[in-house]
């Protein structure tokens, strides 16, 4: 099976992202509806973009958390105080564990940075520059999924409120 005028990956990404004008978009769509080869490649673009669109990021804000609760996601909150070493067992009947990194004073409009490191190696596991937070509760929500069993189980979360302020640390020992 082949296509004499195959659409490029770049064109398909632009199409999926809505970056083509109406005429170009229609032309791509007409081609895709008639072409197995190009619709297969477009399917790979779509699957990749959809995986990103539907993911639950490692740090979520209160609005997103409330939305997940309303959508029926089974969530367990795990409050952790600054400096605490938390031994956490991921329950079977839970879709999402939310580590509530509390005890923070976060003024509205503050810039919050979250850094996740492996406890054993100190390796960087993740970094969120402008992390969402719950100012009212003085907390940052770390969303933990069962799939994360594949990652380092024991981690240190550093939360920095304001660029030049010292980081607050939380240590979480996961058992999946």
């Amino acid at each position, binding site marked *: 099976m082949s296509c004499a005028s195959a659409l490029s*990956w*770049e064109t398909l*990404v*632009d*199409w*999926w*992202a*809505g*970056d083509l004008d109406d005429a170009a978009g*229609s032309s791509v*769509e*007409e081609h*895709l*509806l*008639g072409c*197995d080869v190009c*619709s297969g490649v*477009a*399917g*790979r*673009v*779509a*699957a*990749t*973009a*959809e*995986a*990103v*669109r*539907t*993911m*639950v*990021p*490692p740090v979520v804000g209160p*609005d*997103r958390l*409330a*939305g*997940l609760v*309303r*959508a029926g*996601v089974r969530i367990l909150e795990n409050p952790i105080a600054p400096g605490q070493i938390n031994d956490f067992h991921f329950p079977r009947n839970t*879709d999402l564990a939310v580590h509530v990194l509390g005890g923070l004073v976060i003024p509205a409009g503050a810039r919050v940075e979250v850094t996740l490191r492996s406890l054993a190696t100190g390796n960087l*596991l*993740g970094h969120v520059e402008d992390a969402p937070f719950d100012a009212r509760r003085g907390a940052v929500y770390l969303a933990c*999924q069962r*799939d*994360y*069993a*594949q*990652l380092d189980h024991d981690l240190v979360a550093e939360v920095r409120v304001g660029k030049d302020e010292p980081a607050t640390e939380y240590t979480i020992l996961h058992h999946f």
Partner: protein
Amino acid sequence: MKAEAPDGALLAAIALGGAGLREAERALCRRYAPRIRLYGLRHLRDEERARDVVQTVLLGVLQAAREGRVREPEQLVRFVLGTCRNAVLRLRELDRRAEPASNEVLVAAAGMETPRDPVNAAVLLRCLGSLGDRARRVVELSFHEELESDEVAERLEITRGNVRVIRHRALAALRACLDAPVRERA
């Protein structure tokens, strides 16, 4: 009637009716369903509603083919495209009338819906982490927060052209990482 028979042969068999009708209809549906789903997902960003588009469009196409209103392959693609557009417009109109409780609920539900090809969350996180900071932000802002290119450009203080180039490369790198065997992932 073989599944790989050209569209023209399938349309002819459907218009003719008789013994080959069902098989030709099945072959046409198998061929077009994934393409129509892609169209629906692109415009509605919702797997469930994309499936509704597939059903609506295929029913319309089969009806037209049975009645001999669509005979030529080129005509078929244009007919499918037109029917897809109408189906998406109708679904959007229904959404407006239904007035959902809030966008937030829909976003949240979309966030936890089962994708067609589920991606392991840890693998996705690791693969996103393997992209450079700027590339990862472009991918997240474009596809997770669903910002337009101009908005991504403004947020990251780069040009719209840069956003597109970074996005092309980053999405290809992300796909390659997701497809790679475990030992090859960064």
